[in-house]
């Protein structure tokens, strides 16, 4: 039997409903949330943003008003961190929104997904690696401001005994060490998260392009 001869049966039986769906049931579905990975990632991102705001905003407010505003610099540092996270969330949300064109041709949609996913992975790697030295510097500034006693310690600041070059060099080595370690940890983790998915999408694309 040739494939052409199966067209009739296909049209007869292939379109059997996967479940009974009347207009009311379909109307109900329109109000449900998408369960696609992109929609889930967007929802997670929203929760991450809310968590960060709920964690950092009260601390910033506290340092603005407590201790007669003596430590308002710390409040500004938390606000700076919030701005950094806001920029991170904004860019990630933008990428997630661009990732899908459901009504486009299947091949163009796949190309778009691969391109955007690779951009996202690259962004994750850079942001995740940069976050390490930035957070360390940020922590260093907090300690320096909150604990005036450490201001005289050579671990934190160049003194008459230890030159700026030595302290700077020591900190650069520490920052570089942790940044490199986290770069590889991030790379492994991102590959674990998206590697297989990207590889699968690429293999589908390759198959479409091959003659």
């Amino acid at each position, binding site marked *: 039997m040739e494939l052409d001869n*199966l067209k009739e049966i296909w049209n007869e039986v*292939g379109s059997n409903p996967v*479940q009974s769906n009347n207009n009311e049931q379909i109307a109900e579905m329109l109000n449900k949330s998408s369960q696609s990975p992109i929609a889930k990632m967007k929802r997670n991102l929203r929760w991450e943003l809310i968590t960060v705001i709920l964690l950092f905003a009260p601390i910033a407010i506290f340092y603005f008003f407590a201790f007669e505003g003596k430590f308002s610099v710390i409040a500004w540092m938390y606000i700076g961190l919030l701005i950094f996270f806001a920029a991170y969330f904004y860019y990630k949300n933008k990428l997630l929104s661009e990732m899908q064109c459901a009504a486009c*041709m299947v091949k163009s949609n796949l190309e778009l997904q691969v391109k955007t996913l690779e951009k996202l992975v690259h962004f994750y790697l850079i942001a995740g690696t940069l976050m390490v030295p930035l957070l360390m510097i940020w922590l260093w500034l907090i300690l320096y401001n909150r604990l005036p006693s450490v201001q005289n310690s050579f671990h934190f600041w160049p003194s008459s005994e230890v030159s700026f070059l030595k302290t700077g060099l020591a900190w650069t080595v520490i920052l570089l060490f942790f940044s490199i370690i986290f770069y590889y940890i991030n790379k492994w983790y991102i590959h674990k998260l998206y590697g297989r998915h990207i590889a699968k999408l690429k293999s589908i694309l390759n198959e479409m392009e091959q003659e």
Partner: protein
Amino acid sequence: MSQQEFLDLIKTHQPLIHKVCHLYGQTPMDKQDLFQEIIIQTWKAYGSFRGESKFSTWLYRIALNTAISTYRKNKRIISTTAIDGLPVDLAEQDYDFAKEEKLKQLYTAIAKLTEVERAIVMLYLDDKSYEEMEEVLGINQNNLRVKMNRIKDKLRQLTKNEVYGTG
């Protein structure tokens, strides 16, 4: 464009969505989830439908995009029997044995094809021209013809030992 208009269009074109669900879903639950996801994605994109292409072409794109890339399950186990690929209520319906057997074999064979090949076969069985297939998939017509011939050979090989095989 109202919700009622959308529901009417979906009602008319539902068989198309069911076919995609049968081809890409593995279990009845999978198929229902995929059906719901296609409806949601179609509704989300409906505002941007300008009628530049036929509604069915537009719907094929959304359904296949959802099935192939958006809603792809991580664990793709290709079944060795036709049971998972068969429409759920096939057994309840009054089909003659030969027809049922043919379709079982077709689903068994199609389940062994890749995602792209399944999409091509579906459009072919739906009697779409190569021009329409290109509009849906974005693969040029010459390439589609080559692929279709290869798929036919593959299906013949896969079903050559079956009573109603395509070989």
